[in-house]
């Protein structure tokens, strides 16, 4: 294959959809003007567990504009076919309006459909539901855990016993909610037995499969459309009950139905990052060489599904040590089911592990970076595979230099500015980047423009832009002449838009499709007697700016347009594929970071404020540097929230979430984020993908909370082992 010049990839381009977004023309799920659509508003249970004993819908139905109220007593029975292979965790998924059981506070118990939004909202407030309430169990620390999932190498207990230095530390992590700015929303329309939904999702195929399963529809009779996703961070990785409710309501009323969750409902039915209790015991020698670690990890899940995430990975491969044991226990509670949230598993584990490393460094009097260097493994000790690339040492070196780490005093509480104590901290982040099967289609038209399609998503990282870059270079076209389309289940299928997998997976499929199209064109040219390229070895032909020419001899060639016109071809087309991660794995494929924080603590008032943050990333090749920088900033800002602000609070008396709104569940605002910097190390990682990428959307949030917590310790001498770190802990 001819080496294509890379013009677009690696260039700091602005977003191709930027204009649509800054002018308000980008259409999100709830914004499609579907003729005749009526409005649906969900009624949520006001108990945390029990049974519905009565529903009085009279007042609601008497309201002008209310069409119907649907609930378990009148809803049609739905097939709810099994949907294995989806992102539904093991268990029995919530079946909307199919029985009288209430499994958690805020579960959908009815839906009001009305001709106006106002009538539907008012109607929902008038539905009277009576319950036989039971005491819900919502406290991670009180409930009985499931059997653990275990991992072991060596003899961790013995290793710990014989260690010169031992630490036994327990960290508490609050539940976090994704809170994308766009609420989850669905518009559903039936045309006979065909269902079309405009649904906020990170995976149109996932919604497609789930709706087909729930309503027992043949594949091909469901279409899911979602060209713009107003943030996700994981909340859109599975098809949630409200999407089924919208489709059900449309079925029952015979009208297209629009259902938009309220911000409050975003806390009740679209998943969350589970709270954790993470106990870690570390053993090391006096020089800081780790000998053993024991991890006891408890995490929330729901009573009806067992949600797990990759919270064990970091403890197995981040640092070198002979003895590791881990026990990961899910704790079923009367809550709705969690779902992956940015840096899933790794972000949570990293707070415990990276804080513990900082505690060990302090105990031993070793610089935290030096401690990490002393425990840098030469292979992945969890599976003895070589690392594809692992440049953490370089992350440390660059980060320390750029951040001014040498200005950090190793003695806590030694830098003061007036009422403020200043501290620096750092942490390591690792993330097991996903690579999943994907397909894409590329079509080169006779006018020299191309359209590339895949059923992936763009929740904000810039899939539209970066895939256009990849496609443009592979086709030898300018950015302007390539259009990338996504967010439609009619396009070639892909795996979920998450797990930092999109570029490696979809990008590889796009490259494959575009390479095929380019090769078709080259073949056409070299075999065409009338082409200036006739007889040239195909391997010597490159395409640039839509013009095929002999490598090193730009004068000899012709454009796609003339080639296709002369050959009476309306277009050339190919379907590309990516099979997923190599199996069996040959290398250990992770993205890495070193994250640095400088914070100021008003120790009298207990307030922590971030001053500046730096992330240095080993994330493989960077396709779209301008957008990658934005992603890094986003991960850091998300980490600031986890560290200092975010905490979903449940009232264990009745299982009610008491801060289900953006005034009480605090996310970072502009004033919380003064200075952020991101550095991506140059380089590529060619393990099992055509682009040399590793993925970066997840790793950028891993370690951030620990870096901030470690900085708080450096500033104050106080170690806070519970997130978020708030005034209570520091006053």
């Amino acid at each position, binding site marked *: 294959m001819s080496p294509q010049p890379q013009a677009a990839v690696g260039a700091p381009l602005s977003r191709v959809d930027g204009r649509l977004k800054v002018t308000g023309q980008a259409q999100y799920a709830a914004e499609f003007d579907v003729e005749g659509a009526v409005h649906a508003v969900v009624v949520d249970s006001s108990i945390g567990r029990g049974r519905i004993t009565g529903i009085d819908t009279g007042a609601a139905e008497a309201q002008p504009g209310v069409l119907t109220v649907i609930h378990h007593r009148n809803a049609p029975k739905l097939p709810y076919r099994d949907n294995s292979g989806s992102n539904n965790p093991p268990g029995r998924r919530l079946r909307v309006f199919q029985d009288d059981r209430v499994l958690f506070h805020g579960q959908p118990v009815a839906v009001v459909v009305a001709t106006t939004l106002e009538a539907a909202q008012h109607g929902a407030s008038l539905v009277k539901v009576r319950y036989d309430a039971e005491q819900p169990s919502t406290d991670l620390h009180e409930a009985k855990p499931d059997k653990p999932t275990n991992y072991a190498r060596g003899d961790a207990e013995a290793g710990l016993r014989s260690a010169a230095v031992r630490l036994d530390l327990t960290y508490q992590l609050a539940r976090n909610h994704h809170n994308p700015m766009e609420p989850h929303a669905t518009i559903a329309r039936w045309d006979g037995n065909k269902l079309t939904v405009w649904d906020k999702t990170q995976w149109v195929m996932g919604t497609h499969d789930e709706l087909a399963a729930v309503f027992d529809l043949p594949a091909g009779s469901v279409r899911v459309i979602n060209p713009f996703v107003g943030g996700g961070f994981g909340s859109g990785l599975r098809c949630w009950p409200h999407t089924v409710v919208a489709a059900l309501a449309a079925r029952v009323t015979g009208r297209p139905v629009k259902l938009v969750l309220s911000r409050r409902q975003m806390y009740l039915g679209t998943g969350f990052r589970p709270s954790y209790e993470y106990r870690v015991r570390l053993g090391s020698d006096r020089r800081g060489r780790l000998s053993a670690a024991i991890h006891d990890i408890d995490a929330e899940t729901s009573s009806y599904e067992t949600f797990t995430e990759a919270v064990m990975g970091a403890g197995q491969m981040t640092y070198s040590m002979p003895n590791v044991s881990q026990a990961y226990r899910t704790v079923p509670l009367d809550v709705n089911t969690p779902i992956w949230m940015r840096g899933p598993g790794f972000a949570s584990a990293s707070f415990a592990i990276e804080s513990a490393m900082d505690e060990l460094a302090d105990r031993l009097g070793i610089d935290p970076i030096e401690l990490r260097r002393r425990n840098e493994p030469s292979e992945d000790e969890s599976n003895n595979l070589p690392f594809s690339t692992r440049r953490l040492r370089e992350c440390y070196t660059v980060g320390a230099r750029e951040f001014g780490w040498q200005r950090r005093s190793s003695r806590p509480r030694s830098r003061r500015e007036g009422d403020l104590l200043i501290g620096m901290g750092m942490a390591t982040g690792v993330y097991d980047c996903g690579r999943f099967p994907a397909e894409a289609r590329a079509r080169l038209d006779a006018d020299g423009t191309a359209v590339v399609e895949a059923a992936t998503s763009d929740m904000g990282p810039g899939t539209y832009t970066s895939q256009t870059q990849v496609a443009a270079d592979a086709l030898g076209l300018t950015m302007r002449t390539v259009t990338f389309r996504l967010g439609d289940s009619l396009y070639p299928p892909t795996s979920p838009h998450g797990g930092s997998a999109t570029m490696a997976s979809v990008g590889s499929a796009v490259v494959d499709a575009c390479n095929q199209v380019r090769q078709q064109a080259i073949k056409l040219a070299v075999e065409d007697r009338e082409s200036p390229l006739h007889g040239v070895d195909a391997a010597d032909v490159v395409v640039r700016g839509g013009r095929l020419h002999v490598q090193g001899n730009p004068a000899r060639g012709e454009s796609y347009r003339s080639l296709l016109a002369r050959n009476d071809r309306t277009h050339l087309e190919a379907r590309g594929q990516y099979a997923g991660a190599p199996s069996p794995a040959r290398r250990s494929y992770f993205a890495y970071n070193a994250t640095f924080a400088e914070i100021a603590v008003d120790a009298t008032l207990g307030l922590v404020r971030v001053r500046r943050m730096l992330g240095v990333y080993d994330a493989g090749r960077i396709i779209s540097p301008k957008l990658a920088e934005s992603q890094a900033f986003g991960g850091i800002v998300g980490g600031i929230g986890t560290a200092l602000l975010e905490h979903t609070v449940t009232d264990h008396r009745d299982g009610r979430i008491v801060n289900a709104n953006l005034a009480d569940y*605090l996310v970072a605002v502009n004033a919380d984020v003064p200075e952020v910097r991101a550095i991506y190390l140059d380089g590529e990682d060619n393990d099992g993908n055509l682009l040399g990428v590793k993925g970066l959307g997840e790793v950028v949030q891993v370690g951030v909370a620990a870096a901030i917590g470690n900085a708080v310790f450096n500033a104050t001498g106080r170690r806070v082992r519970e997130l978020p770190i708030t005034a209570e802990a520091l006053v």
Partner: protein
Amino acid sequence: MHPFTYTRVSDTREALNAGRGGGRYIAGGTTLVDLMRETVEQPETLVDISGLPLREITVAEHGALRIGALVRMAEAAAHPKVRVLYPVISEALELSASAQLRNMATIGGNIMQRTRCTYFRDVTADCNKREPGSGCAALHGFNRSHAILGTSDHCVSTHPSDVAVAFAALEARVHLLGPDGERQVPFADFLLRPGSTPDREQALRRGELITAVEIPALPRPLKSGYLKVRDRQSYEFALTSAAVALHVRGGVIREARIAAGGVGTVPWKLPEVEQQLIGERPSESLWASAAAKAADGARALQHNRFKVELLKRTVERQLRIVGGTK
């Protein structure tokens, strides 16, 4: 949101007529519309008073400041006289809410704000303020943001306003107009502690309208300022706050006006702290000993114990910021 009829009034007489008939006044609407959407508020008639001529800020000759009830928070904060004479008011306003909300909300509406208590705002929870006799879910629930002063077994919610704390400190007077004419109520008497009737929040008679808030003249020079302590750097209600105004002459504190926010069921005036300061010379130790009185009588709940100490430190810090240390 429950259906309601809407009337717009153009003079106060019209307003009072509508108010007497049970209409609910709406000014900026930032609290009321929010609570109507949650069905916490279900007025049958909204009387839009935003067209009334209550948008002036005037300074009397003797130095008293009068802020019309319909002056927007942003306007009041930016007003040159307010900024110069009463920085504590400007600061309290600009540390409130967001720029957008401050462009909408009015001074009268701000002091009429209702509590942010999560159980009050959730119509499926027990709340004596919303539904007298139903109980107080916050008392033994999640009460981190709740009050430690002025509470009762019936209600422990805080008054959320910042500028009301400044008004309480400065001993403002609320000008009211009702069917029976005009009257003035001292700020300390305007907002009511919950006692056994937490549903009664203001000393307002039926149909009465706030026309202005007046800050009485204080001896000059007067230094003042507002400190707000919160988890987030901006756009959040206070955990604790302190409004402080000091008149220092000849190196001696002659007048002190101090109140705290985020800790009381109403903006919490601190007369004991004021008394400690009068006649004394500013010093670090004075600030500390005076502020030590700030939480006297506090009754902490399960999740807000930290506020007792934090309140003292907030007041101490703000005394130092305003009073300096000599």
